[in-house]
């Protein structure tokens, strides 16, 4: 398959995910949904699940496969969107989002049947789990890989930096982390709440193979995920826009967690159609 075809496949998945995310946010109704942070990593997720993370309902029960950890668990709209497209459950199941007794709550809950490996939502925990998995795969001489998506605000957590220190120490070249750098966290800008400084240099100084790229450029994402590193874990600082893809939500932190009204939902559908 040519690279162009692959890129087109990623783009067509992304369009489906966008629709699923918007639908699910709307199904949430008055209970609100984390929209902004799901949209900022939608290109990352589309790229990963089209070309790199090889999980599906058939291989999911095996331990020897790729692993994905959404450490910023509040962005679950995009996670559920992709799991539905992969066939772990139906698009119709998205309607149960945040409803009583649903398996699709406002943060992912471990579910072997539906493709969810870890319960996340308390920020700062996913990286260490990814490190343990990457070590486990290496011990089993597996070629499979571990991918972790981390928020930029999430990097305020000390536990992230415990992980940052240890992944290069264990030479985990089978581990890739993506930091969704949308420059916003729950109540404002990173730089106002807790400055991250030059994240790429910081991570690089910890011994990672660190990169900074446009997190909405699918070709760049594809290329960087394809690159092999030599004994180092890979960190990608993906420069993104919170709320990306919906004009009214872009860079507007009101959409960190909010109700998607009927008017906005209809506007969103029109915008997606016109893309």
């Amino acid at each position: 398959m040519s690279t162009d075809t692959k890129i087109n496949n990623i783009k067509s998945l992304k369009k489906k995910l966008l629709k699923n995310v918007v639908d699910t946010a709307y199904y949430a109704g008055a209970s609100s949904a984390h929209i902004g942070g799901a949209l900022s990593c939608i290109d990352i997720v589309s790229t990963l699940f089209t070309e790199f993370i090889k999980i599906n309902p058939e291989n999911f029960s095996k331990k020897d496969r790729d692993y994905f950890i959404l450490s910023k668990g509040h962005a679950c709209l995009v996670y559920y969107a992709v799991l539905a497209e992969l066939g772990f459950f139906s698009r119709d199941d998205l309607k149960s989002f945040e409803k009583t007794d649903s398996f699709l709550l406002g943060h992912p809950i471990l579910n072997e049947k539906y493709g969810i490996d870890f319960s996340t939502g308390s920020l700062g925990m996913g990286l260490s789990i990814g490190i343990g998995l990457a070590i486990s795969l290496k011990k089993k001489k597996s070629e499979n890989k571990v991918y972790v998506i981390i928020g930029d605000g999430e990097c305020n957590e000390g536990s992230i930096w415990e992980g940052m220190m240890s992944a290069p120490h264990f030479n985990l070249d089978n581990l890739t982390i993506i930091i969704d750098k949308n420059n916003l966290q729950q109540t404002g800008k990173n730089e106002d709440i807790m400055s991250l400084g030059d994240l790429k240099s910081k991570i690089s100084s910890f011994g990672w193979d660190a990169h900074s790229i446009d997190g909405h450029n699918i070709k760049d994402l594809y290329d960087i995920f394809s690159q092999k590193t030599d004994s180092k874990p890979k960190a990608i600082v993906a420069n993104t826009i919170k709320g990306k893809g919906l004009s009214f939500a872009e860079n507007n932190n009101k959409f960190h967690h909010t109700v998607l009204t009927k008017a906005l939902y209809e506007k969103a559908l029109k915008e997606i159609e016109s893309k």
Partner: protein
Amino acid sequence: MKLDKSKIKLFSTIGSRATFGMVCLDLAKEIDNLMVLTSDVSTSAGLDRFKLKYPDKYLDVGIAEQNLIGVATGLSSGGHNVFTTTFAPFQTMRCFEQIKVNLGYMKKKVTMVGIASGVALGTLGFTHCAIEDLSLMRSIPGMTVISPADCGEVAKSVFAAAKHKGPIYIRLTGVANNPIVYNDDYKFEIGKPIKLEEGNDITIFATGSMVSRAVDASKILSKQNIKASVINVHTIKPLDINFVNKNSENRKLIVTVEEHSVIGGLASAISEANSQLINKSKQLSISLPDKYFQGGEYLDLLNKYNLNSEGIATTITKNLAI
């Protein structure tokens, strides 16, 4: 795993944490996918030989207890049989939320071994003591909480934990020359308390370092014609409620003895179990107080709070006289 007299003697001499490290050497022979993780405390946990002999089964994640539980969780998810160990306060408190989410909520099978719990390190102050760990671990749904009575039981617990399904916390108490409760091999089963003495006046429920002291106390009491049952509650959670109830009804007194705060440990577990009993007996809790008291030598601290055989016996007779 089988105990014999020489092992029992050796384990007791070296104390609970060195026993843990030694037992890991045997465990590695049986459990192929074993991983033992520490946070820069391999020597304190008696793991120096293990580290040399099984470098592939050993991992130090640095002085980073949140990372310790996270990495353990990842390894467990990949199919490894994982033990983590560090000093009890660091093992249970720095990473409490990781334990809640990863081992509790996600039910990941990891065995945590909290070394030097209670006030074994009383001379180092309360940063290094743990009088809260039973309370914390017991509060997590699905967590099994074990508090071995002697070093032989440490060995038994470690082997049983490796074969058990869910997450476990093993609390190690005492120092070197740990008193021996079991002089011969015996049957140990997670969740099954063991009656060591039989008597119908009172029942003493004891755990960890206090089991041998409770047995000795019962001998003192016997001379005063107070007949006591003594029960080794090595598994604080899940607690065998039927067994506890049966041994709590119609007694002059039931007593709990533990090297832990009076809040949330054995005292709480027993009174919770008995709360529905109609023929409930009065409960006396001999524990450490709910405060950060002046530190000091281990045995001095136990003596100060009546956590020795005479102290236990006297506290009981006084209470019976009321």
